[in-house]
C-alpha cells in the first residue's frame, strides 16, 4: 500500500504543468530520433542530455525518459513504411509490418504497433510499481552462463522460422556470426579479422548492416520491379485506428505472452532486441495463422512490438535499483543520473523517493501521451506512402546515408552501408533469408562473449550450462524450441501409428 501512496505522490509531481510540457516535448523529439535510422535512442538521449542540466533532476529525467519512449515508438514507423528498422528491436517488426504496408494496410500496422508498444510498456510499468525490489534481486542471479542460455533460447526460438531451405538459413546465420566476430575480441583483447584496416576496428555495426541490407536492398528491388511503390492505396483517416482496435483484443494471448517475455528479457538484462525476436518466433509457433507470418499478419506486428516495449521499460528497473543499464539508452540515462548527483543502486528507492516515484509516474503518463501523439499522426505517416517512389527513394537514400554516418560519425560506414545494400539485394534474389543473418549480427558477439566467460569460470567444463535450476531450465527450453518441428513431426507420426 505504501507503494500506491508513493505512486500517487509521484503522479502529483509528474502532472505539474512544466513537467507535462517537458513530457510532450520529449515524446516529439524521441519520435523524430526514432524515425531517423542510425541516430537511435542512445545517441539521441546523449545529444540532448546537456539540455536538461539546467532543469530540476525530476523534470530532467522525465524529459529524457520521454525521449526514450518516443524513440521506442518512432522506431516502428520506418520499419513498417520502408522496411528500414530505425532501432535494433524494430527488425522483427519489419517481417510483417512492411508486407502489410505493401498491401495498403500501413495504417493498421502502425496502429497495431503503437498500441502494442503501449500495452507492453504499461504491463512493465505495473510490474515495476508492484514488484520492483523482488524483481531486482532476480536480475542478480544472471551470470554469464544464464545470459548465454537466454541468447541460446533467442536463437533457437528463431531457427526454422523461414520457409527457405534450412541450409540457406544456416548459411545466412553463419555469415552473420562471421560478421559479428570482426573487431576486438573482448575476451583476449586482441583484434581479429580486421586485416590491418583501422576502419574495421569497430567491427560491423549492426545498424549499418541493417540499414544497408533492408533499406538499400529494398530500394534496389523496387527499382528492378519498375519503380512501383505498392503502398499507395493506404487509407488515410483516423477511422483506421478504431477499426484496428476492434481487431486487437483477439490477440490477447500473444500480447500477454510477449509482455512476459519482454519483462523477463528487460530485467535480466538481455534487452529489447532478443525479446522482440524471441516473441516473434514463439508467436509464429503458437499462432493458428503461423504459416501466414511474414506475409503481413497483424499478429506478427503485435508480438515483437509488445515485447520490445515491455523490455525497454523493464530495462530501466535494473538501472535504477542496481546501477546496471539494461540497454545502451539506459546507460546514457545512468550517466545523467550521476551528473545530477543521484547514485543509482539499492539505496535510490529509499533515499530519493520523490525522484523514483516521479519517474515511475511519468512512465505511465509519458506512454499515454506518446500513444496519443503517435496515433493522431498515423494518417500522416501512412500518407507518406502516397508520394511517388521516384521522389521518396532519393529521400530514403539520403536518410539512410545520414543514419549510417551518425552511428560512428564515419564516412567509411556510408560506403559499407551501400555494400551491404548490394549484398542484401543479391541475398534476396537468391532467396537467402535476411532475418537469421541480422539476428546473428546483433546477438552473435554477445552470445560468444557470455559463452566464453562461462567457460573461463568453469575451467572449460560445459556442465556450467546445466549447473543450476535456472540455467538448465532456460537451456532445455532452448533445446525444445530448436527441435520443436522434429518433436511435432514425431508426435504426429506416433498418433498416426496408434490410430
Amino acid at each position: 500500500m505504501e507503494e500506491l501512496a508513493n505512486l500517487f505522490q509521484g503522479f502529483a509531481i509528474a502532472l505539474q504543468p512544466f513537467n507535462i510540457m517537458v513530457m510532450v516535448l520529449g515524446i516529439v523529439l524521441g519520435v523524430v530520433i526514432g524515425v531517423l535510422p542510425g541516430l537511435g535512442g542512445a545517441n539521441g538521449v546523449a545529444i540532448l542530455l546537456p539540455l536538461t542540466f539546467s532543469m530540476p533532476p525530476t523534470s530532467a529525467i522525465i524529459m529524457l525518459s520521454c525521449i526514450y519512449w518516443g524513440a521506442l515508438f518512432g522506431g516502428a514507423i520506418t520499419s513498417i513504411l520502408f522496411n528500414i528498422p530505425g532501432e535494433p528491436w524494430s527488425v522483427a517488426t519489419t517481417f510483417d509490418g512492411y508486407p502489410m504496408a505493401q498491401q495498403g494496410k500501413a495504417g493498421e500496422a502502425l496502429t497495431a504497433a503503437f498500441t502494442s508498444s503501449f500495452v507492453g510498456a504499461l504491463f512493465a510499468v505495473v510490474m515495476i510499481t508492484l514488484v520492483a525490489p523482488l524483481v531486482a534481486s532476480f536480475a542478480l542471479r544472471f551470470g554469464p552462463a544464464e545470459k548465454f542460455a537466454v541468447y541460446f533460447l533467442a536463437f533457437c526460438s528463431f531457427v526454422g522460422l523461414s520457409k527457405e531451405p534450412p541450409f540457406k538459413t544456416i548459411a545466412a546465420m553463419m555469415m552473420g556470426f562471421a560478421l559479428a566476430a570482426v573487431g576486438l575480441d573482448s575476451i583476449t583483447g586482441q583484434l581479429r579479422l580486421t586485416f590491418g584496416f583501422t576502419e574495421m576496428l569497430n567491427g560491423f555495426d549492426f545498424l549499418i548492416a541493417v540499414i544497408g541490407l533492408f533499406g538499400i536492398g529494398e530500394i534496389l528491388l523496387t527499382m528492378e520491379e519498375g519503380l512501383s511503390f505498392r503502398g499507395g492505396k493506404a487509407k488515410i483517416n483516423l477511422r483506421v485506428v478504431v477499426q484496428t482496435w476492434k481487431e486487437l483484443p483477439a490477440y490477447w494471448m500473444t500480447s500477454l505472452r510477449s509482455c512476459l517475455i519482454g519483462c523477463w528479457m528487460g530485467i535480466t538484462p538481455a534487452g529489447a532486441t532478443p525479446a522482440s525476436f524471441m516473441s516473434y518466433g514463439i508467436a509464429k509457433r503458437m499462432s493458428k495463422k503461423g504459416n501466414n507470418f511474414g506475409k503481413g499478419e497483424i499478429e506478427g506486428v503485435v508480438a515483437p512490438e509488445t515485447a520490445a516495449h515491455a523490455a525497454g521499460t523493464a530495462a530501466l528497473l535494473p538501472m535504477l535499483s542496481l546501477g546496471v543499464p539494461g540497454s545502451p539508452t539506459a546507460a546514457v540515462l545512468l550517466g545523467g543520473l550521476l551528473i545530477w548527483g543521484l547514485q543509482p543502486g539499492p539505496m535510490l528507492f529509499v533515499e530519493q523517493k520523490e525522484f523514483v516515484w516521479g519517474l515511475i509516474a511519468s512512465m505511465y503518463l509519458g506512454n499515454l501521451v506518446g500513444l496519443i501523439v503517435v496515433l493522431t499522426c498515423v494518417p500522416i505517416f501512412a500518407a507518406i506512402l502516397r508520394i511517388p517512389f521516384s521522389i521518396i527513394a532519393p529521400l530514403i537514400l539520403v536518410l539512410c546515408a545520414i543514419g549510417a554516418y551518425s552511428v560512428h560519425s564515419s564516412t567509411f560506414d556510408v560506403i559499407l552501408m551501400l555494400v551491404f545494400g548490394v549484398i542484401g539485394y543479391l541475398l534476396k534474389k537468391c532467396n537467402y533469408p535476411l532475418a537469421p543473418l541480422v539476428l546473428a549480427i546483433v546477438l552473435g558477439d554477445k552470445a560468444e562473449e557470455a559463452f566464453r566467460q562461462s567457460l573461463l569460470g568453469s575451467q572449460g567444463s560445459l556442465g556450467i550450462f546445466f549447473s543450476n535450476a535456472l540455467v538448465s531450465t532456460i537451456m532445455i527450453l532452448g533445446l525444445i524450441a530448436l527441435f520443436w518441428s522434429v518433436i511435432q513431426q514425431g508426435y504426429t507420426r506416433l498418433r498416426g501409428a496408434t490410430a
Partner: protein
Amino acid sequence: MKRSAEFALATMAALYAGAMAAPALAAWEPVRPVEFIVPAGTGGGADQMARTIQGIVTKHNLMKQPMVVINKSGGAGGEGFLDLKASGGNPHKIIITLSNLFTTPLATGIPFSWKDLTPVAMLALDEFVLWVNAEQPFKTTKDFIAAVKAAPAGTMKMGGTGSKQEDQIITVAIEKAAGVRFTYIPYKGGGEVAVQLVGNHVESTVNNPIEAVAQWRGGKLRPLCVFDAKPMAYDEPIADGKSWKDIPSCKSQGLDIEYLMLRGIFMSPRATKDQVEYYVDLFKKVRATPEWLDFMKSGAFNTTFLTGADYAKWVEIEEKRHETLMKDAGFLATGN
C-alpha cells in the same frame, strides 16, 4: 523562445566582453563546435566524466562554442585514438583518456602512441579498490589472500573490465605479489562487473570507487584495500559509518601494489601553444565549479592536476611502467 535567445545573446556578449578584457587568455578560441572524443563506451567511467564536463561547460557557459561528446570505443578505444591522430592541426578535437592510452597500442599493436597527440592536462586520477561480496567471511585483505591460497589454483574468479587492460594488469600484479592464481573474467563495463560480484558470479573485483559505491552503500559489497600509497582523502561516512578514508592501502595490508588510472585530456597533433593554453584554462575553470567537486567526491578521485611538461613527464613514466607490467604479464601483441 525569443526571450531566451535574447538572453543567450546577452550572456554571450557579456562573456565575449569578459574574454576581451583578458586578452592574454583568449589568444585562441574555438570557432567551431569542439568534439570531445571518449575512447570507451557510453556509461563507463571516462564517458561519465566527459559528460559531466560537457554539462558543466554548458551550464556555466564556459565556452562560446558547444562541446559535443562522441564515443569512439572500437578496438578497445583504438578507434578514438587513431581518429585524433589523423586530425592533425584540427584544434577542435580533444580526447579524454583512460589507461587504454597505453594498454591498447601495447596489446593490439595498432599504430599509435600518446606521443602522436598533444598533452593538455591531467584532470584527476582514478583509484582502484579490492572488493568482495559482503556475504563472504573475508574481513581483511589478509583473510582474502589466505582464502585464495587455500582454494585450488584458478578456482577463485576475479571479474574486471576489458581484457589486458588496467583491471587485468592489477590482477596479475596481485597474483605475483601474493603468489596466488585467479581466473580473470573480462566484462564490458565496470557497473556490470560490480553487479556480477553482488550476484556472487565472481569472488572479487578491483572496481573504481564510482563503479561500486552504490553497492557498498547498499551493504552488498565490502572494500578491502585501495591500490594507492596512502588511503583516500574523503572522510564522509558512506556505509556502516565507514568512509573512503577508512579503507587501508593495500601496501599496509601486505600487498605492495600501487595503481592509479589517468583521467587526462589530450588534443590533436600539431596544436599551437595558444590552443593548448585555451584548453588548460578551460579545464581550470571546470575544476573550480561545485559540480566538479561533487563529482570528485562521489567517485573518491585523487584530484592531482598537472599540465605542460610535468604532465608529459608523468605520462612518459607511466607508459614505461605499463610496458614493463604488460611485458611481465605476457600481454604484449605479437610482433611488438
